[in-house]
């Protein structure tokens, strides 16, 4: 028994010692930089929300860890409330996910204070085909959502993309991506509206 333990220690002491040292090194690096990593994430989200709600001056979490439906089941995300310089609520923003053509698509979606009209979306992360699905970031597609009703949207292949209504003209050559974006909106917006109504956030502060 003793010999076995001795053999084990002899064989593995270097592995044990270096594992401990490297673990310590990583812990130190993580302690030093993790605050900065969190700050970067928060800043990025804030920047994306602010670019959607142009008059927004500050944001605060309205509903923490709200359940928003996605194609892979409900996802927990914070619903943010946007205030203008006078402190009046001017809209809501939240992160939603869905499955795209190549990978999952994460969008930041913003709606107005009554949750009646969309402010549009920004892409938080995606891996769609360059030159095709990637065009969802272009204004020609994304601007169709600015001012569109916050209800059920439908996808059409041919139409006037300049007209703001519940019909969204698909990106040519990227039907899967266009459908994915529409589905993300259709699944999430109505659910968010319902949750905001239930919490009384729309009638009290939004009106």
């Amino acid at each position, binding site marked *: 028994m003793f010999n076995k333990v001795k053999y084990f220690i002899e064989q593995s002491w*270097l592995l044990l010692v270096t594992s401990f040292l490297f673990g310590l090194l*990583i812990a130190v*690096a993580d302690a030093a930089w993790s605050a900065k990593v969190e700050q*970067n994430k928060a800043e990025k989200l804030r920047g994306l929300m602010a670019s959607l709600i142009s008059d927004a001056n500050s944001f605060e979490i309205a509903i923490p860890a709200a359940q928003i439906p996605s194609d892979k089941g409900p996802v927990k995300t914070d619903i943010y409330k946007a205030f203008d310089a006078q402190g009046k609520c001017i809209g809501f923003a939240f992160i939603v996910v869905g499955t795209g053509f190549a990978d999952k698509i994460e969008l930041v979606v913003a709606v107005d204070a009554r949750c009646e009209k969309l402010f549009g979306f920004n892409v938080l992360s995606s891996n769609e085909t*360059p030159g095709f699905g990637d065009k969802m970031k272009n204004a020609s597609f994304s601007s169709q959502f600015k001012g569109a009703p916050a209800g059920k949207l439908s996808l059409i292949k041919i139409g006037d993309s300049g007209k703001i209504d519940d019909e969204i003209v698909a990106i040519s050559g990227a039907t899967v991506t266009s459908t994915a974006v529409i589905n993300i909106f259709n699944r999430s917006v109505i659910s968010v509206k319902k949750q905001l109504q239930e919490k009384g956030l729309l009638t009290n502060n939004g009106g």
Partner: protein
Amino acid sequence: MADENPVKVNYLDALTAGLWRENPTFRLLIGMCPPLAVTTAVKPALTMGLSVIFVLVCSNIAISLMRKLLKPHLRIIMFTLSIAAFVTICDLYLRAFAPLMSEILGAYVPLIIVNCIIIFRAEACASKNNVWFSILDGIGSGTGFTIALCIIAGIREILASGTFAGIAVMPRGFVPWAAMQMPVGAFVLLGLLLGLSSLLTAKRTN
């Protein structure tokens, strides 16, 4: 330390071998994942290259320091452990101080752990040579890899977006080749460059 290098080692050779004669991408064809995957633009390619240099030099130092304690059957696990530790540190650093690059490179930074070049240099060089030699070897191989990445990324970025490191270089009216941004562009271009490098080497040896 006197008996450490019975054969006189050429330090200059350690530094320059990786640049062309033993260039990981064009001559040895190892670690071929990043040259295909992260070369759509110059900036991410350069970030990737610098990350690999950092990991390569650090792991070479660590392995060279412990080379006399390594047991043959445990050496691969020691290499992987050292590499994984430095890759994790590098990934944390990028996420903290270069969030945009970290986002573009995505999973490819953690994937440096399985990059052939690093484990190959650990096995072929660092586990047999002193620290200084291993450092130079790491810098040489890493720089050769970075240059290769930047050449591929430069050509792809110019043809796919008409820019070089984000600066417009192509004349007005240039139609971007979307194909160059996609995997097919990487494969075709890499094939052509490998052909060119073989042609150059063949001429030199003749």
